[in-house]
């Protein structure tokens, strides 16, 4: 059995019917633990005070805002190469989740930036590239909505996703060119020594795990909805054919 057997919608529906609630529950548990731990049981930072706790929403949301686009890119490639409908629908399903994550990251960043930097918004490379990512999501979703024929829409949005990915990376480096960053560097990574302190680190990991489960659960849920919508459409067409 290979992973491609999940491209069969019936099989996909059968597996995700059990998987989605489980992931949703896992996300709920992890988020309650992570956010509760982060908000109530970690000390205030000596310089930033209580505002440091926004990190538990900001970092995971930003992480999955980018990963959602990456997932759409992979799904679009699978659709273009192997023409699995579930893949195209999953890409479509991930876009609104991705834009929500982007907006969460932008808004929490603004809320945190106001007391820390003294400004809601700065044209910092990271902030700007997230705004651009947000615009890409808007364009992608708008193109899906605008085209009636589902296969044409899947094809065109996939091409847009590929080209958009190249330009998103390009924009990231273009705005870096301004070279006037307010945003601090990565505060957690696997390969450097310099991370946030352990007291903040572990709840953050739990939160990231929670957001990961939440993201997958939401995408699966939306993909299931899309498949059902597609089936309903097919049933209606068949009925109309039978009437005529």
């Amino acid at each position, binding site marked *: 059995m290979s992973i491609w057997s999940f491209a069969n919608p019936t099989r996909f529906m059968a597996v995700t019917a059990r998987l989605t609630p489980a992931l949703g529950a896992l996300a709920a548990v992890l988020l309650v633990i992570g956010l509760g731990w982060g908000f109530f049981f970690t000390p205030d930072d000596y310089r930033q005070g209580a505002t440091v706790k926004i990190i538990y929403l900001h970092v995971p949301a930003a992480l999955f805002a980018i990963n959602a686009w990456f997932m759409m890119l992979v799904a679009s490639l699978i659709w273009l190469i192997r023409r699995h409908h579930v893949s195209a629908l999953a890409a479509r399903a991930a876009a609104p989740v991705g834009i929500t994550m982007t907006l969460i990251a932008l808004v929490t960043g603004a809320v945190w930036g106001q007391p820390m930097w003294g400004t809601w918004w700065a044209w910092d490379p990271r902030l700007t590239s997230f705004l*651009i990512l947000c*615009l*890409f999501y*808007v*364009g992608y979703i*708008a*193109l899906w909505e*605008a*085209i009636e024929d589902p296969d*044409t829409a899947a*094809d*065109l949005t996939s*091409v*847009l996703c*590929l*080209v*958009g990915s*190249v*330009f*998103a990376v*390009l*924009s990231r480096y*273009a*705005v870096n*060119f*301004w070279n006037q960053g307010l945003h601090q560097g990565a505060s957690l990574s696997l390969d450097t020594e310099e991370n946030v302190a352990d007291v903040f680190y572990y709840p953050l990991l739990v939160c990231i795990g929670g957001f990961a489960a939440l993201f997958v659960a939401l995408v699966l849920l939306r993909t299931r909805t899309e498949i059902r919508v597609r089936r309903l459409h097919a049933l209606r067409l068949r009925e109309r054919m039978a009437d005529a």
Partner: protein
Amino acid sequence: MRDLALAVRSGGGFGLGLVFFLIVTVLVPFGVGPETARLAPIAPGILWVGALLACLLSLDRIFALDREDGALDLLATAPIPLEGLTLAKAAAHWLTTGLPISIAAAPLGVFLSLPWPGHLWLSLSLLVGTPALSLIGCFGAALTVGLRRGGLLLSVLVLPLYIPTLVFGADVARRGAEGLDAATPLALLGAVTLGCLAGLPFAAAAALRVSLR
């Protein structure tokens, strides 16, 4: 060639972009005030944004008219590949908007009290950068050609794609105007244009094939 002749004769596409560019340039001093100290630093940016918007304005004409009278289907079945067609379309668009704007930008810079060596850098950066705008626009137009009201959607799709070109282009013009070394952003701008030239005709042709299916 046919596109060129049509664009010049019908007047619409050819004049429109240029006049829009002129209007933007003339209106800005009324908006922000006529002092040289205020205008000079923002002049390169304003001229670049004006050029970009002027390009955006004429994008939906690239394929829409041909689609309406069926010429696009004929061109698609013609012996030249679609990639070549999109490249020719982008070239025609550039010759009717990008090139005149690049030439007009230097004299228009006077209105915005652009310091002297900046004119040359501005024209040069537009000359290098506007082909990328036309190519990206051609891709966007190919994506939206099948839609009845593609105009607004086209702008939304193309807008984020224009950002790298705008950043580098405006930076060349700004550094040139301030007398700094502008070679690095100019090289990057050229790289963006050449990258678009190499990749986007294929993407645009793929999108056209889907739209014409």
